């Protein structure tokens, strides 16, 4: 039975921006929720060192892809929310195109191996 192992560090790093952008395209979110969502959707195979997400978010904010605001959680705790900007949406579409291309090349090569 084919089993997907833990994803390599380099691939995790490269996928961070498209994943964050795609999650924020669904609506405003915050660091902890983003990490949990990625973990759940990858069945725990894609795991970030929690704290490392924040420099990435800050970098994306500096680049004008996302914006942030301080708000409150349901329990009244301070929480920083992030949302997608117009440039972020464009960057996300580019990421999707590039990752789809890589995926289709890989899928094609894999198919050839079984012919």
């Amino acid at each position, binding site marked *: 039975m084919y089993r997907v192992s833990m994803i390599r560090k380099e691939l995790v790093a490269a996928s961070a921006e498209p994943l964050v952008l795609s999650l924020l395209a669904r609506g405003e979110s915050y660091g902890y929720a983003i990490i949990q969502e990625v973990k759940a959707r990858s069945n725990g195979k894609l795991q970030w060192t929690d704290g490392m997400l924040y420099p990435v978010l800050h970098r994306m904010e500096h680049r004008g892809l996302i914006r942030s605001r301080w708000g409150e959680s349901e329990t009244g705790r301070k929480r*920083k929310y992030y949302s997608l900007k117009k440039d972020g949406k464009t960057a996300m579409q580019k990421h999707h195109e590039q990752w789809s291309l890589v995926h289709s090349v890989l899928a094609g090569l894999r198919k050839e191996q079984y012919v």
Partner: protein
Amino acid sequence: MFDLEQSIADWRQRMLAAGIKTPVPLEELESHLREDIAQQMKSGLSAQQSFGSAVNKIGQAPELKREFKKVSAPMEIQKIIQLAGVIFVAVTLFCPLFLFLPFLLAHGLSLTAKMLGLAIYATTVSTIVLSWRYNHKLLPVIRNQLLRRAVGIVCYAGSLLWMRFGVFHFSPGGLHPQSFLVPLVIFGLEWTVMAILGGVGHGLEKAASRQDQPAVS
């Protein structure tokens, strides 16, 4: 007896000592830490276990500092360049308006002539805005930060020199309404060149930042 608040305060001190800045990064990390602790306690772990696990997951202070430093160090300079860009846009948009106004309000001009003057001003402004908005798509990506900033600074300086000598020394003198079209076109061209030149620094930073990849591990 384990004191959660004291442990969080100690963790904050360790982060501060390692150089994680306050307020934003540290406040945000603490917010995350508390969120994680609360979730783990909900799932049945003790406060001490939850705290230990959350601290491990959030990462070590030196690594975090290194990553945050990558974000803030070059970006501070980038912010200054962007601010300079905004000032340039403001100047290049509003100054021509004051130069054009005497022509547009002159009594001796027909309505057609005034409309033509307004159209030239609108064309100048549109060219400036479009070049600032999209010049990064045409500019090359210069990966060497020093070279990129040097080119940007040279362009800003060139733009200022152009404004100093081009606009104020070589423009046709005398605002005679009868010969309004020639000076208007020249003013338009001069301000547009200045704005495009001034926008290169901003555009180069934007072009380079779009190529950057984040680092998460």
